[in-house]
Each structure stands twice: as structure tokens, then as C-alpha cells.
């Protein structure tokens, strides 16, 4: 049964690739959504069976994939708690997004192609999380990269979209390459790429902090930051918003971008053995969440706000991973998948309603014209901003904030940054909400309400965004640990440094306070004192800073100057292949020799005689010189 979970999406993708031009829209919708829906149902059944069985994991061997010498990688699927969490999110959220897409993409000419790619993506993503060995994981890993590329560039007519798509693929490929090298090293030392066997062997093979394992962990981290758009490979994600909004929701918010989190969590043993790498994970996460938060603050495009927010939230997850709070990271992944998918789809609904207008400054006042969308969007925003107690985002983020400080690998600095991030999150989230839904409408096109196929998934996700938090509650608030217990066999519990309820309260209250402060400032900024804020923003330094943040801390420029330009420029310069010049020169020299020699064939008899004579003199003098000297 297990194999059916990825096989169905793959099969439907194949069907759609072969026949999307001939199928009717209904057929496409049925195949596209139906396959994912069935997958989701199978996941439920399989998950139930798995939980009943009491095993740590279920493995299904399909066939031997690559076997060469001592290297062996099978088409093997493994289901355990961690992958189950991911599979669940992928299939369910995926299904909702598919349903949503039938409405969102209804008018698109390439309806079938869209679903073909989406299904392929779901299949690949499932492969990624179900893989029993790293090679298969890599297959899924690259497969989702491909689909991400295809879907970002879905509207291929605009070269900018194509550029964004390629950028996404190439930047993640940089990370993938690092990961591939990690795979080589793992195989070299452990003789296998099977995840469970690596994790079993690793502690016996390396002492904590051994250079090799640190290097491996760093390389894996390289793969993770590429896929999850973390520093320093975060630049592709904001551009990836060029794709249709369901794509952003599914791939660039809920699932694919969290693959990095999955990878690090999956190989947690290695990171445990490599403190330096784990610290790096935390630092990357912390830095990213701050950076992206700042950038989100100044964006105009509603999807870019969400994109930076995604980067920032994944930063939280990385921070959690970095401090050893494995299950907290996964928990945040789950809640984030719900509320971010919700937000993206809500934003998508707005965008569709406004005839593909994405600039928030051309929105406003939509609270009245799109009340349904407003409500769910508000729920999502609240969850993102971690509004205390009633949102899932609060519980998952609060856990990270607290553990960043209190866990054995935590640090006050992390905590401060996490709090600052919470503040920023609240601020940019509500800036977005206020800009979009409050004030007066600044656009031209008349908004029209989205259909039910788009709204129903939103309602479901809104519900999930709220209740999903209650599966895991902090000590201070009821102490429910359903989720972390569920993950226990795979992910070790977090090592606490200090367990003080008082401190935890402090942290929680502080975070809650900062959230409210952020919302208030956003209120002041957008609604109450827009002119004052504008004056503030137009101070020279602020203007520069705004521009700097707007461009995502100018990483694009940096990479352009440092890597892209030199590559392109040398490529252009060398278009005619410098090496070829060597050979053409050689040919030219030969031709020159011909010309020089041809001149000796003058046709003059005396000249020929001269030639004979010169030869004679040379030969004779050599012969005689040889005798006398």
C-alpha cells in the first residue's frame, strides 16, 4: 500500500503529461485532484495501520535501483513518524491546494499542464520524504526542484518568469551539489546510503566534533539551505513568486521549501555529532529569520511579503533544529504549512479577485468587498503573527522562542533574535493585512468574489491553522505533548538547560507583548499615521535602508557581481573557444610555410640549379667537416 502514496500522483502525472491536450478540463481536474485525494486517504489508512502496529518504521522494498560493487540503493520506501507527518501535510494540504487550483486556474489555457506538474511535484515530494536511502531522497529532492522550476516558469511567455524559474533551479542546485558531496562522503565512510544504517553507524564511527562528520553535516546543511531558501541561498524564493499562487502555496510555502528542515531532522544524529554544524544551523536560521523579516516589512507585492515571511519562518525552524529542538521544528513546519498555505491561497483569492493585481498599494478596503477572504486571511495572519493562545502559530513559534533560550544548545542571543523576529513578523503581517483589507480601495478593477472551489479549502485550512496548535501545548499551558511523543522514536527529545516555568512565562508574555506591539505599530504605520510614517521613511538613511531591505539585503546584486557576471562575461568573451585559436594559429603557420616555400618554386632554371648546388655544398661540407673535425 505504501508505494501507492507516491505512485498515484506519479501515475496521474504521467497520464496528464501524455494526454493533457486531449482531456477535458473536468477529466484533468478529476485525475489531478482525485489522485492526490486518494493518496491522502491511503495516507490516513497507512498512518492508522502504522500507529496501530507500534513499530518505529515500515519499510517497503520495491526493487533494486542501483547496485554497483558495494554500493546498493534500492527503491525502498520507509514510513515512520517523521515521514508520516510530512506525508500527511503533503497529501492533505496538497489536496486542498489542488482543489483550490481548479478554481484559481480555471481560465488558464494550460490547465492540464498545470496539474501534470503539480501531481509530479506531489509524487516527487512524497518520494523525498518516504525515501529509505539518501539516493532516493536525492531523487525526490531534485524532482521537486524540477517541478518547482516548471511551475515557477509556468507562464513561460514572460521571460522574467523563465528567469525566476531558472534562478530557483540553479540556486538550489548549488545546495544540491553540496549535498551530493555529502552523500559521497557518507558512502565513503559508512559504505551505505541507507539512512537508518548511516544513523546507526555514525555514533560508533565518529566522536562528537570529528572533522569528517562536521564536514558532512555542513555539506548537508548546504543542501538544506538551498532547498529551504536560507542564508546564503535564499535569493531565489522571492522571485519564485512568479509562478501561479497555488504553486507558491504548495511548493514555496507548505512543502518543498521545508525539505531542508526534513533533511536536517532526518539526519539529526549527524548534526548531534557535529556541534559546529548544528550551531551553524541555528545561526543560519536566526540570521535568516531576521533578514527576511526586515525585507518582508518593506515589500509592495503581497506575494513577496509572504515569500519573505516563509523564508523567515523556515529560519525559525532552522533555529529550532539548531538548538536541538527537533520536534519543535517539525511542529512549526506543520502549523506553518497550514497557515502559510492559507495565507497564500487567501492572497491568491485577492489577486484573482483583483484581476491579477499583486501590489498591495493598489488594494485596500477589501474587507468589505471580500469578507470571506478577509476572515480566513485574518485567521492566517493571526497565526503567522502568533497571536497568543488562539492560534497554532503561537504554540509552535512560542516553543521555538522558548527553546532557543532554554535548551542545552540554546543561547540568549538566539532568544533575543527570535523575539525580534516575532515582533517583525507581527508587524509585517499586519501591515499586509491593513494595507490589503483596511483603508480605502486604491485600485481600479472591480473585485469579484472567488468561487466555492477556492473558498472551501480556505475554510478548512483556517480551521486547521487554529486547532493544529492544540496538539502540543507548553508546560505553562496544559502541557500537551502529543506531537513530540509521536515523533519521539525518530527525533530525540530536546535537551533542556533550564526548566523554569517562571522564565517560560516571561518568554511567552514577552513574545505575546511584542506581537501586540508589532500589530500596533503596523496599525499606526498604515492606518493611523501614514503621513508621519512616510516622512520618517523618506529620511535619507531610511530611504536607503528601505531600498536595501526591499532588494532583500542586496544579495542578488552581490551574487550577480561576484558569480553571475564573471561567468557570463567570460562565457561571452570565450564564445569562439580560445583553445580553437591555438589550432587555427597552427593552421595559419602551416599555410605561411606553404607560401614561403611556394616562392622558391619560381620556375627559373638557374634558381633550381642553385638549389641543387646549395644542397651539394651542404652535403659535401658536412661530410668533409665530419672527417676533419
Amino acid at each position, binding site marked *: 500500500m505504501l508505494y501507492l502514496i507516491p505512485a498515484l500522483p506519479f501515475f496521474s502525472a504521467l497520464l496528464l503529461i501524455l494526454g493533457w491536450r486531449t482531456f477535458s478540463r473536468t477529466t484533468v481536474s478529476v485525475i489531478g485532484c482525485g489522485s492526490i485525494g486518494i493518496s491522502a486517504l491511503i495516507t490516513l489508512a497507512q498512518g492508522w495501520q502504522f500507529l496501530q502496529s507500534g513499530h518505529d518504521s515500515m519499510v517497503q522494498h520495491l526493487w533494486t535501483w542501483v547496485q554497483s560493487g558495494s554500493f546498493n540503493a534500492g527503491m525502498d520506501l520507509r514510513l515512520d513518524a517523521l515521514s508520516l507527518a510530512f506525508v500527511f501535510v503533503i497529501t492533505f494540504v496538497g489536496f486542498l491546494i489542488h482543489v483550490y487550483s481548479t478554481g484559481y486556474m480555471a481560465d488558464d489555457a494550460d490547465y492540464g499542464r498545470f496539474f501534470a506538474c503539480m501531481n509530479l511535484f506531489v509524487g516527487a515530494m512524497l518520494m523525498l520524504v518516504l525515501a529509505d536511502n539518501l539516493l532516493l531522497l536525492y531523487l525526490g529532492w531534485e524532482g521537486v526542484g524540477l517541478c518547482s522550476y516548471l511551475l515557477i516558469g509556468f507562464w513561460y511567455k514572460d521571460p522574467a518568469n523563465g528567469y525566476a524559474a531558472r534562478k530557483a533551479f540553479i540556486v538550489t542546485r548549488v545546495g544540491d551539489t553540496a549535498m551530493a558531496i555529502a552523500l559521497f562522503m557518507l558512502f565513503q565512510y559508512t559504505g551505505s546510503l541507507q539512512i537508518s544504517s548511516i544513523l546507526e553507524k555514525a555514533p560508533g564511527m565518529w566522536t562528537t566534533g570529528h572533522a569528517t562528520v562536521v564536514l558532512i553535516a555542513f555539506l548537508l546543511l548546504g543542501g538544506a539551505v538551498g532547498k529551504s531558501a536560507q542564508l546564503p541561498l535564499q535569493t531565489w524564493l522571492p522571485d519564485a513568486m512568479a509562478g501561479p499562487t497555488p504553486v507558491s502555496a504548495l511548493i514555496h510555502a507548505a512543502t518543498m521549501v521545508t525539505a531542508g528542515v526534513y533533511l536536517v531532522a532526518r539526519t539529526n544524529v549527524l548534526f548531534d555529532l557535529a556541534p559546529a554544524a548544528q550551531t551553524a544551523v541555528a545561526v543560519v536560521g536566526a540570521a535568516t529569520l531576521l533578514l527576511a523579516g526586515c525585507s518582508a516589512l518593506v515589500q509592495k507585492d503581497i506575494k513577496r511579503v509572504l515569500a519573505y515571511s516563509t523564508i523567515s519562518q523556515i529560519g525559525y525552524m532552522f533555529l529550532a533544529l539548531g538548538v536541538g529542538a527537533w520536534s519543535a521544528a517539525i511542529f512549526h513546519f506543520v502549523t506553518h504549512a497550514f497557515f502559510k498555505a492559507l495565507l497564500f491561497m487567501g492572497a491568491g483569492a485577492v489577486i484573482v479577485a483583483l484581476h491579477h493585481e499583486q501590489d498591495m498599494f493598489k488594494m485596500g478596503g477589501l474587507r468589505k468587498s471580500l469578507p470571506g477572504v478577509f476572515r480566513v486571511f485574518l485567521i492566517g495572519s493571526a497565526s503567522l503573527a502568533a497571536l497568543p493562545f488562539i492560534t497554532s502559530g503561537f504554540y509552535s513559534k512560542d516553543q521555538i522562542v522558548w527553546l532557543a533560550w532554554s535548551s542545552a544548545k540554546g543561547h540568549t542571543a538566539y532568544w533575543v533574535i527570535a523575539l525580534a523576529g516575532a515582533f517583525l513578523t507581527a508587524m509585517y503581517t499586519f501591515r499586509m493585512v491593513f494595507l490589503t483589507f483596511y483603508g480605502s480601495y486604491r485600485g481600479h478593477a472591480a473585485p469579484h468574489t472567488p468561487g466555492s472551489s477556492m473558498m472551501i479549502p480556505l475554510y478548512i485550512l483556517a480551521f486547521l491553522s487554529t486547532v493544529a496548535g492544540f496538539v502540543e501545548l507548553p508546560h505553562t499551558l496544559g502541557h500537551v505533548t502529543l506531537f513530540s511523543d509521536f515523533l519521539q522514536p525518530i527525533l530525540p527529545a530536546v535537551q533542556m538547560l533550564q526548566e523554569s516555568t517562571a522564565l517560560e512565562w516571561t518568554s511567552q508574555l514577552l513574545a505575546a507583548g511584542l506581537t501586540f506591539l508589532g500589530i500596533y505599530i503596523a496599525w499606526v504605520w498604515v492606518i493611523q499615521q501614514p503621513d508621519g510614517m512616510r516622512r520618517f521613511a523618506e529620511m535619507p538613511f531610511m530611504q536607503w535602508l528601505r531600498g536595501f531591505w526591499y532588494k532583500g539585503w542586496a544579495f542578488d546584486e552581490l551574487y550577480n557581481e561576484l558569480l553571475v557576471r564573471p561567468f557570463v562575461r567570460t562565457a561571452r568573451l570565450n564564445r569562439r573557444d580560445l583553445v580553437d585559436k591555438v589550432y587555427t594559429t597552427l593552421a595559419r603557420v602551416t599555410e605561411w610555410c606553404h607560401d614561403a616555400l611556394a616562392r622558391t618554386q619560381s620556375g627559373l632554371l638557374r634558381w*633550381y640549379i642553385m638549389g641543387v648546388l646549395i*644542397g651539394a655544398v651542404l*652535403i659535401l661540407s658536412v661530410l668533409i667537416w665530419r672527417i676533419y673535425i
Partner: protein
Amino acid sequence: MTFNDLLSLGPLLNIAGASVLAMLLVAIWRNHRLVYYFTVLAYLLALMSVVPVARLLPHEIPPLVVIDLFALFNSGAIVGSGLIIVLLSYNYFEEREERKEEYYLLLLLATAGALVLVISRHFMSLFLGLEMLSISLYGLIAYLRARERSDEAGIKYLILAALSSAFLLFGMALVYGFTGHMDFPGIGAYLRETETLPVSVIAGFGLMLIGIGFKLGVVPFHMWAPDIYEGAPLPVTAFVATISKGGVLVLLIRFYQDVNGKEYTMLWWIMAIIAVISMFAGNWLALTQQNIKRLLAYSSIAHLGYLLVGFLSGAQSGLEAIAFYLVAYFVTSIGAFGVLIVMSSSVQDAETVEDYRGLFWRYPWVALVFTVMLLSLAGIPLTAGFIGKFYIVMAGVDGERWFLLIMLVINSVIGLYYYIRIIAMMFRTSETPLRTYIKPALPLAGNITLGLLVVVLIGLGVYPTRMMQLIQEMMTLIK
């Protein structure tokens, strides 16, 4: 003179006698066809007379000549080549000259000269053969009197050949003067006995080398070749390229063996340098040459360089390689000139590369023959030229002459360029009609001859075993 002596000289006597008879025939009844058939007959008889000689080998007629398998083999090759050249000549001359009968007479004489060369082991027979060859060639080269270039080529060749003969003669005189011998074994014996050679003998050898080098057309004595190739009638060019050069080379080999030339490193070095320069000069000169006759002249300079590499390898297989290469080269060259002959019209020889533009699309058969010939010259597999070059390289590796081999390799690559250039021209698609002087109908005899050559060429390229066996046997005998 015993009967065996006569029998063993069979090919030579046949050809020489035929030349006398031909002269009488022409005097009595001037008829092109008749003389042609007579000549063909004479060559055929000569070729057949090679067979019985095989029983007598090796046969010596002291002091002038020796008929061993080596000599016989080369005699056969010369007569055979001569026969093919004659076969190709008929149509060529039929369309051109008023008095074409003497051509056959001269050709027979020249062939006789070459036959004398290959069996000689004495200065006197050497000289006789060489001059018979040369003087007939003067006439042959200038045979098409009406053509301006023929005369020019004839006079150039005459003066230069006479000059080279003078060098050769003076060299021989010096050698004779200080050794007292004119026969090769005698000279060899003298050299073996003498510790340090007198300067004059060395100078004599040097002068002889110049004379021989001229006939072979190696650098720096090569300059005549392109002009003579260009000016001479095509069959004569084929003759000069093959029989004339081959005969002299055979003589050189014999002389070198008899005087044990291997021992003189200086001589070796000089020849090595000549070989290298010849390869380079020949190939470089041919590189963008537009006249195919001149191009083949330059290419033959380079090929002589290759042959010298085999010669200089010092390995026994080197001589075998030369023998094989010579056969391959004979077949190939005659084939190439044969194509030129077939394609030429009465007005002008089809000699520029441009004349062959798009030939493949008009006369695929001729184009393919020419392609095969050129590929053989370039040494590409499936052709005799490949096996020949392989043989040479093998000998070179055997003798560990790495420098020469590298030079050979470089030159093969350069050489490839201009052979391909012609091939490319033939396969170029062109809508413009071929030049008008290329005749529309091709002579049957020429086609058959070309077909025969292709068969031989590819046969030798695919299954050279028999030929190699023969050559190996022959070489073990002259050692």
C-alpha cells in the same frame, strides 16, 4: 653468355628488343593502333618472361648485373606499371599528337633503362640504365611539342638531369679512382678493409648522393619535379612519378646494402635530414596547390621522405616496407594519374582542382576511383597505402627511430589536408556545369584499367598477406 643468362635477362631483352622492333615498325608502317598493340604485346611478353626467371634465382652475370628476387620483383613491378601506363596512353595520345607512334618507342626505351637500373650492381650498368632512362625521358616529357609547357619542362629536365648525371659521374669517378672498383661488391669489400676512408671517397659518395637524390626528387634537389610533372604529358608524368623514381630507389637500396651503408652514421644523418625536410617541404608545398599535377609532384616528394624513413629505420622490415610501399605507391600514383588521363580532353589536361568540382555527381565512378587513390596516398585503411604506411611505421618503431616517426606522423596529418581538399571538391554539390573541356564519354579501356587498379589497391589493403610473404622471401635473400 649462357642460355640461362639470356633467360634471366628476359624482361629486359623483351623490352629492349621490342623497342628496336617498334622503331622498325614505325619506319615501315606508321599506325598508332598497330604500335600500341605491339607495345602492349611486348609488355605482356616481358611480364610473362618474369615467371621463368624465378627458377634461376639468384642469377649473376658478373660483373655488371645480378638478377635476384629483389631485382626480379622490381622488374615485374616496372613492367607491370609500364603496361598499365601504356594501356592508359592510347586514348590520351590518340586525341592529341599527329605523330604519336614514337611515344611507345621512347616509353619502351625508358622502361628498358629502368630495368637495367634494377638489376645493375656496377657503375657502368648503373650509368647505362640511368642514361637510357633519362634521355628517353627528355623526349617523352617534351613529346607534346605543340604545348608550350612541354618544351619548357623538357629543357628544364634535360639540363638539370644532365647536371645531376655529372655529379653522379664525378662521384663515381672519385670512388673508382680511390678504390679501384666499379662493382658494388668490390667497393663494399674495399670499404670493409679500410679503416679510415680517404676524403675523396667520401666526397665521391656525397656527389653520388646528389645525383641519386635528384632523380628521386628529394629536397633540396626536388625543384624540378612540379614543373616536369606539370609540363609532361600525363602518362609520362605517371611514368616519371613511378618507374623512374622507383628504379633509382631500388638502385639506392642495392648500393646501400652492398657497401653496408648502415655503418656510416654521417650518411645516415644526412639522409635522415633529407627525409624530414622532404616530408615537410613536399607537404607544405602541396598544401594549397591548385594544380593537381603539381600537387602530386609535391606529394611524391613527401612520399619519398616516408620511404626514406623506412629505409633509414635500419630494421630488416624497413626494406620490406619500402618494397611494399613502392608497389602500393606505384598502383596508387598510376591510378591517380589514370583518373587525370581519363578526365582530360584533347584541349587541355584536367589538372586544376577546380576541374573536379562536383565530379561525384556527374561521374560517380571516376570520382570514387580518384577518392580511393587519394585515400591510399593519405594512408587510410582499406587501401594499399595504409598497409604501406603501416609497414613503414612498423619498421621505424622496430628500429626505434622515434624522431623520424613523429615527423612522419605530423606530415601524414598535414598531407591529409590536401588530399581531402581534392576529395571535398569532388563531392561538393554544384549547380554550375563542369568545365567544358572535361569530356562527356569516358574510354572503356581506361575505365577497365582503373577498375583493375582499384581492385588491386583494395585487395592489397584488405588482404596484403600474399604480397608480404613474397616480399619477405625476397628480402631474406638479398640480405
